[in-house]
């Protein structure tokens, strides 16, 4: 039984990782691509890790997989934030479909060129 659940979770994980990669190709600019890279890929990988728990039970491997989940969460969120902010400061503009930009003018001028 736990094997079946494990396989299902593994499939969900791989599917979501695939969606994340598709988003990385299809979405228009850095910020939107980060959206798919953080959300779909994190859920996909977490799902794969939880499936490991179902395959191996609460043994060494299962517990380590569980410990990896919060690590993954914290590192993805911090990385996404740092990438988005870094991209904005180094002058990569939003996509032309964007309808709002409150951040403009908030960044300190000498940190980068805002003209692009």
């Amino acid at each position, binding site marked *: 039984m736990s094997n079946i659940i494990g396989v299902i979770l593994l499939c969900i994980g791989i599917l*979501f990782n695939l969606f994340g990669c598709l988003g990385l190709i299809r979405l228009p600019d850095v910020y939107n691509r980060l959206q798919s890279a*953080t959300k779909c890929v994190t859920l996909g990988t977490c799902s794969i890790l939880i499936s490991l728990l179902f395959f191996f039970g609460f043994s060494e491997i299962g517990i380590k997989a569980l410990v990896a989940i919060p690590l993954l969460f914290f590192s993805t969120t911090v990385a996404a934030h740092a990438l988005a902010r870094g991209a904005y400061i180094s002058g990569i503009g939003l996509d032309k479909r964007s309808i709002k930009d409150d951040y403009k003018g908030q960044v300190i001028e000498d940190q980068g060129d805002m003209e692009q």
Partner: protein
Amino acid sequence: MRYLTLFIILFLFWLLLTFELSPENLITGAVAAVITTLFFGRFFVRGVKKFFQPARYFWLLVYLFIFIWECLKANFDVAYRVLHPAMPIKPGIVKVKLNLESNIGRTFLAMSITMTPGTIAVDIIDDHIFIHWIFISSTDPEVYSKKISGRFEKHLKRIFE
């Protein structure tokens, strides 16, 4: 006190990660934890007393379930936008007022925002958080502030403040 708490947390984390109770492993873990504590102790949470108040852990658990639910919704939402042939996106950066005081609370709010439907926290300046949103559904600041941070803030207040 702060340093000691950080040391204990790091050491427990090391034990979980290596999953071994041999003396060599314990010594390595202790040394690594001491070095990390010396370098990063000053960045640790102020007011460690909060670690010893059980009610906060209860709210953390409640919050965790809400968060996982929101996170699942976020994933389906983004997957839908990616797979839809016309890509229904309306991206932009919005500014939302923060109601949390403590740094750790703000950090967790920013992380929760990054993990939920189509939003990434880009920066915090003074009392405002800047959020990249993949689908801006309304232009009224009141409405979207509530939508983005309102549902988390009241729980985070109970956990961290």
